[in-house]
């Protein structure tokens, strides 16, 4: 009898997969039998409804692999990059790291805000002509970490608004720092304003119905819907923030996926700072993960403009700097060397554009596949995510059925909030071959 043959993708997934305790579902109350301390569990942690979304998907992925070892499972689920990093970038990282073994090349602690040359190249190349100074750029180990640090900065006494559906990091970090009450049956936490983004409103909330909140988290191009907000929409958002005295946290992790051509609404902005007046109301966060394949290398940045002030007039950047110096010790110097190589040469920028192009082509395949099946499909043109409607069906059921029948991992829309119910997110991060194979299987199943 032959041994089950796993694909290398499956093998790699299992190699990095979690150990037993890691996988224990958080919402299932487990109690150890031994002596307990007298320290009360943080009530904010108790409010969390279940495990973070993406490890939950991993758990299901692993369980499926064990159930069907011959299945050749294809992941279009977690947005995990698969294309190798261009060698112009990795060579720079290797060169930097070898220099750390020499007296001249050794560097110890870097500035917590990041190496000045990297901050400068981001200000120049990512924000040309937008008036962003290098001193306003804070280098990090990624957007998810920045979101946590920003929530720690804001503290428990601010209110937040999020898109619905949304990347779960904004909500979960808000719960953890104590900004919310408990969740209701629909999974909405008391105290958060959920701004519905649906096909019916062109994936932009009706701001006239959104209550005032201190902070507004907005992701564009959006995870999970794939919608890139138009310049007009972002002007409306900035005006809304200004009228309400709110701070926008604008997540541009997918900015490189914005199509050059634009659409009926024009070319989509790649930064909130393309909108006049944004400097006084917005923080922007971004990441090298999805354009440079740095999901494991860990590098990102936050822009906090000098003009952004609290109600008492104090600059937000000053407190953020204090957080960065106290709760963090800088992104890895090796990762920063890689970031510099990405952005500081035409060769580096072209190389990452090519990688983004691979994923955009994959997204096109997925959009065409679902469209040809008569499904309502969104995203995929300015984003690596395709957002498919399955009307009248629970998204976790659709997820499970797709997984069982086609061995393709997706992400159920309700994982991103109640507004995601009835949708499935399909990600374009995989090799072309696997995306084509997945597309073929989905066509057969959904036909």
């Amino acid at each position, binding site marked *: 009898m032959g041994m089950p043959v796993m694909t290398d993708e499956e093998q790699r997934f299992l190699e*990095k997969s979690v150990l037993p*305790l890691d996988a224990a579902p*958080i919402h299932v109350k*487990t109690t150890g039998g031994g*002596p*307990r*301390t*007298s*320290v*009360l*569990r943080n009530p904010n942690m108790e409010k969390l409804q279940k495990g*973070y979304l*993406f*490890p939950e998907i991993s758990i299901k992925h692993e369980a499926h692999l064990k159930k069907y070892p011959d299945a050749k499972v294809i992941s279009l689920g977690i947005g995990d990059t*698969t294309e190798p990093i261009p*060698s112009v*970038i*990795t060579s720079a*990282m*290797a060169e930097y*790291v*070898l220099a*750390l*073994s020499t*007296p001249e090349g050794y*560097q*110890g*602690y*870097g500035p*917590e805000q990041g190496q000045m040359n990297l901050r400068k190249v981001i200000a120049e190349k990512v924000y040309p002509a937008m008036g962003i100074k290098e001193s306003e750029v804070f280098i990090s180990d990624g957007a*998810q*970490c920045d979101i*946590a640090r920003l929530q*720690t900065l804001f*503290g428990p*006494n601010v209110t937040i608004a999020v898109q619905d559906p949304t990347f779960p990091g904004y909500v979960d*970090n808000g719960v*953890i720092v104590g900004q919310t009450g408990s969740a209701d049956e629909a999974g909405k936490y008391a105290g958060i304003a959920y701004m519905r983004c649906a096909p019916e409103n062109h994936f932009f909330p009706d701001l006239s119905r959104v209550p005032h909140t*201190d902070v507004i988290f907005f992701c564009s191009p959006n995870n999970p819907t794939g919608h890139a907000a138009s310049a007009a929409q972002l002007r409306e958002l900035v005006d809304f923030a*200004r009228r309400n*005295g709110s701070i926008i946290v604008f997540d541009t992790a997918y900015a490189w996926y914005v199509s050059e051509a634009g659409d009926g609404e024009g070319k989509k902005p790649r930064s909130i700072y393309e909108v006049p007046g944004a400097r*006084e109301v917005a923080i922007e966060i971004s990441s090298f993960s999805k354009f440079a394949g740095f*999901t*494991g*290398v*860990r590098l990102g940045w936050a822009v906090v403009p000098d*003009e952004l*002030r*609290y109600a*008492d*007039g104090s*600059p937000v950047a000053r*407190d953020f700097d204090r957080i960065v*110096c106290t*709760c*963090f*010790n800088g992104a*890895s110097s*090796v990762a920063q060397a890689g970031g510099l190589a990405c952005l500081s040469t035409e060769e580096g920028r072209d190389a990452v554009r090519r990688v983004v192009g691979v994923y955009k082509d994959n997204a096109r395949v997925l959009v065409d596949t679902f469209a040809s099946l008569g499904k309502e499909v969104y995203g995929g043109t300015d984003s690596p995510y395709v957002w498919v409607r399955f009307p009248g069906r629970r998204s976790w059921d659709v997820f499970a059925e797709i997984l069982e029948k086609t061995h393709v991992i997706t992400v159920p829309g309700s994982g991103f909030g109640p507004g995601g119910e009835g949708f499935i997110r399909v990600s374009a*991060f995989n090799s072309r071959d696997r995306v084509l194979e997945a597309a073929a299987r989905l066509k057969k199943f959904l036909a």
Partner: protein
Amino acid sequence: MAADPAAYKTNVPRNANMAKLQAGYLFPEIARRRATHLLKYPDAKIISLGIGDTTEPIPNVITNAMAERAHALSTIDGYSGYGAEQGEKKVRAAIAATYYADLGIEDSDIFVSDGAKCDISRLQVLFGSNVTIAVQDPSYPAYVDSSVIMGQTDLYEQDVQKYGNIEYMRCSPENGFFPDLSTVPRTDIIFFCSPNNPTGAAASRDQLNKLVKFAKDNGSIIVYDSAYAMYISDDSPKSIFEIPGAKEVAIETASFSKYAGFTGVRLGWTVIPKELLFSDGHPVAKDFNRIVCTCFNGASNIAQAGGLACLSPEGLKAMHDVVGFYKENTKIIVDTFTSLGFNVYGAKNAPYVWVHFPGRNSWDVFAEILEKANVVTTPGSGFGPGGEGFVRVSAFGHRENIIEAARRFKQLY
């Protein structure tokens, strides 16, 4: 930068906890003073024995492994995207096997991070605002500052130089740098660093037995910072888990920074035993795991490849040599101050020398040493009121700089 009163302001209230912080974090403040001094005396040959910044190159066996991993990321077979947030399995296993063999700590108790300072903040986020903490006095400032930021404290009290609601456990020459626990009220969390930053004191087995018993009797959690464990020369315990019963009361943090020169590369780890439970029986590790998955995305895979090489036989020997080099530096500094008649502490088990300047304000001594000898140190009061009257001299530096600094100290005093 003065704010223009007419400038636009949002309506967002500043986090009141941030407003409680007295000044900038200690080490950027030291860096600022150094920079100011350099502006004033551009030709000064400043020697930095302030911030504990490593100076010696990373051994080749470690950087070669990192370079190899970097190159592999450009290949189809070698590319890896998101890693497990808790760390790569091999790294967790190597840490458990190297440092916690026979102590009953398993791979899955290990959480790999981008360094101890970051872990301290994540632990504080985990604990939340409604816990009370105790710290040594003096102590590494991140425990206190992160506590203020989390909202665990009251306002700063200028007269005693302490934040309200923190228990400061005095550690001084008089008590052998170990607090008299009979006078310490119960707190939920006890931060304890050994070998200590800044005093250099390494707690004995007997002292740690007392600490663990104290925590057990009070139902408290110890956060044990072992960042300098490899600097221990005598038989002081290197891990809190060497103490029986510690698994039920302690978390341990550690770092590659001061062993492998990873201060810029960023790699460390935290151990949370399965046996550590909140009062309702919920395992602390489960909540920390949730924090790590939500507020973090794992240490850099390249840094982890370096960590794995650090823990190979060749890497361990290389780290041992680097630590030995800094320990020799420490001896030079200790001998210098001792020969000048100062009372000097620490040094034997740590890369820090804690020098007593009785009756003198430590920032004044810091300024005097900087102005007159062009040497940066760290004033003891930056670590808490218990540090007043002391200066911390760190032993990280090229050998010729350490020797030159010693010469300048001899001249000055």
